């Protein structure tokens, strides 16, 4: 090998160049993100007002607010979480605590991964045939929530599984040694310890559900419905679908542009809040665990 100075310098130069390229590309990714966020914030912030958030859309959706869409999205988020969170957590507990490394476990994992990879529009079709038509729920919050719930189920299962896995086995053994049963161990030891990470996962999936459009197209979303839902069999407007409608097929696309910016900003706002909350929780709990 040649250890001459020029060779070493060449080597270092190459490294420096490569690192600069990687740094620049990473910065580009961040710039893209900031560009999108700031563009929508810049145009949308003047639209956002208390009135925008709490009044009905008017005038072919070119004026007024997005109140029914916000309420609709909240209903769908709540509905899908009521369905997906318990089942997802129970499912993850079974997979992580009860099954040993076996064919069954691998199969279930494979199916969960497959479900996670199915495109959201396929969930939409499925929800329409099963919930709307076959079970006769019609276009309703119930059908939409169940569809969204199934969509987000793999996310909940996976994050819960990760959370359970991160609880060290010594805690389980300690609990057994004290004479606790498996169920007691799970309930009193494993779940409380895994709780922060589970909650973080759930919060992140709320963000995802609130922005999904394709699954609700044919299961619940209403084009224009300036009233609030009264029950789970009602149709609702939803923020993402509303944004789609007013930016592509509204009666007056140019005039409703400010409304579209506003709606996009509300959606981004939800995502931001959800992400910040999840990160804050993660930080808060990780400090707490360290102290113990």
């Amino acid at each position, binding site marked *: 090998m040649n250890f001459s100075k020029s060779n070493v310098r060449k080597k270092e130069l190459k490294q420096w160049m490569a690192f600069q390229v990687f740094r620049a590309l990473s910065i580009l990714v961040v710039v*893209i993100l900031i560009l999108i966020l700031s563009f929508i914030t810049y145009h949308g912030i003047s639209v956002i007002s208390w009135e925008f958030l709490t009044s009905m859309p008017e005038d072919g959706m070119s004026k007024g607010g997005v109140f029914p869409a916000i309420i609709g999205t909240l209903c769908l988020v709540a509905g899908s979480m009521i369905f997906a969170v318990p089942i997802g957590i129970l499912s993850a507990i079974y997979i992580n605590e009860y099954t040993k490394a076996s064919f069954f476990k691998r199969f*279930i994992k494979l199916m969960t991964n497959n479900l996670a990879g199915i495109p959201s529009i396929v969930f939409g079709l499925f929800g329409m045939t099963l919930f709307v038509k076959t079970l006769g729920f019609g276009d309703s919050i119930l059908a939409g929530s169940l569809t969204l719930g199934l969509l987000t189920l793999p996310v909940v299962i996976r994050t819960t599984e990760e959370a359970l896995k991160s609880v060290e086995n010594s805690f389980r053994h300690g609990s057994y040694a004290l004479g606790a049963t498996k169920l007691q161990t799970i309930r009193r030891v494993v779940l409380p310890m895994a709780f922060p990470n589970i909650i973080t996962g759930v919060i992140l999936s709320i963000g995802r559900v609130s922005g999904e459009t394709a699954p609700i197209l044919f299961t619940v979303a209403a084009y224009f419905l300036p009233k609030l839902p009264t029950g789970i069999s009602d149709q609702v407007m939803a923020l993402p679908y509303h944004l789609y409608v007013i930016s592509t097929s509204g009666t007056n696309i140019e005039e409703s542009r400010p409304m579209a910016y506003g709606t996009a900003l509300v959606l981004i706002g939800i995502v931001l809040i959800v992400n910040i909350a999840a990160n804050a929780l993660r930080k808060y709990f990780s400090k707490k665990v360290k102290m113990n």
Partner: protein
Amino acid sequence: MKKFLKKAVEKTIEGVLFLSSTITTVTVVLIVFFLFREGKSLFQSSPLEEGFVLAINKENAVVDLSSNQIKNIFDQNITNWSELGGKDEPIFLFRLDDIGNYYTDEELGENLEFFPQKTNELIDKSAGIIAFFPKKSIDSNFSGKILAIENVNLYKFFSEKEWFPTAQPVAQLGVLSLILGTLWVSFGAILIALPLGLATAIYMAEIASKRVRNILKPLIELLAGIPSVVYGFFGLIVIVPQIQSLFGLPVGETALAGSIILGIMALPTIVTISEDALRTTPKEMKEASLALGANKWQTIHRVVIPFAGSGITAAAILGIGRAIGETMAVLMVTGNAAIIPHTFLEPVRTIPATIAAELGEAPQGGLHFKALFALACILFIMTIIVNLTVEYISSKRKNKTSH
């Protein structure tokens, strides 16, 4: 007794847990069932508009026509029966609405009660006729010949280029342009996302300080959290006009716009998975490389990246999978023209966008509806292939890292 009760409770709970764990499997099975049941029925249906028939003169030697031939006849690309293996006779098109050109209102009667009879008469006397009219208007003494229309078949479904399910008299159900459109846009997306995403992953895993990484990580998560409609909206307002003016195009809604947006959307998937893969490189390997005098870049280049190679491949495939299934953003920026793209600067239409755009208008149970389900089946199979490939790669990886 108490002990027994306790045991029973434990068993019941275990049962509930077990049932919950099967729900993903059950869902996948149900999705397959509903999708394929509806999609399969497409291949037992005639592409001819429901309730209608095509009739020709009884002297005409032609017995059956393919949907493509019928389309060409009605588009007047084929104007002589000899082109279809019949006699040398110019083709005479007759649609329901044309009846007024041949008979007066009086002749047809007040409620068109003589329509069947007159149509029959017309078919009988014109040798070159091909008549498209409702089945219920077939005269009781019908003396023409009803054309046999072959059902939609799998081969045609995949090989025909034209997608026009509401075309009259026969629906054109060729998915080739949609499949190619989907792949085209997705590969474009990965061409953009892979270099960017991989660079970011390498930077985060190997180069950046912990502090920088702690800033980058949540930002990437945020990028993943932005809803697809918002991406679509951004693309529609910013990227589409830019492309239009940059390349001087009549419309900016192109495959390129779709690829850029999908590329951005696929970034988080690629960054996260390849970063994880890069991080699994054993410390010993890196240290051995450094001890041999390699610098950090040489180590990354020659040790870390090759080691994480399969993981990076998995990330790329998964990124493609995400792009293939993405609906709303693509629907908003690609222009949705069902043509086979030749450059990135043409409008394209992807499978998910087609389903989302057309399902609302397709009457339930009709041919169009079934065709959209068949499309969903194709999409489903594509994504399952992607998933299984990734699964296979990562299971091989696990074996490698556990040694």
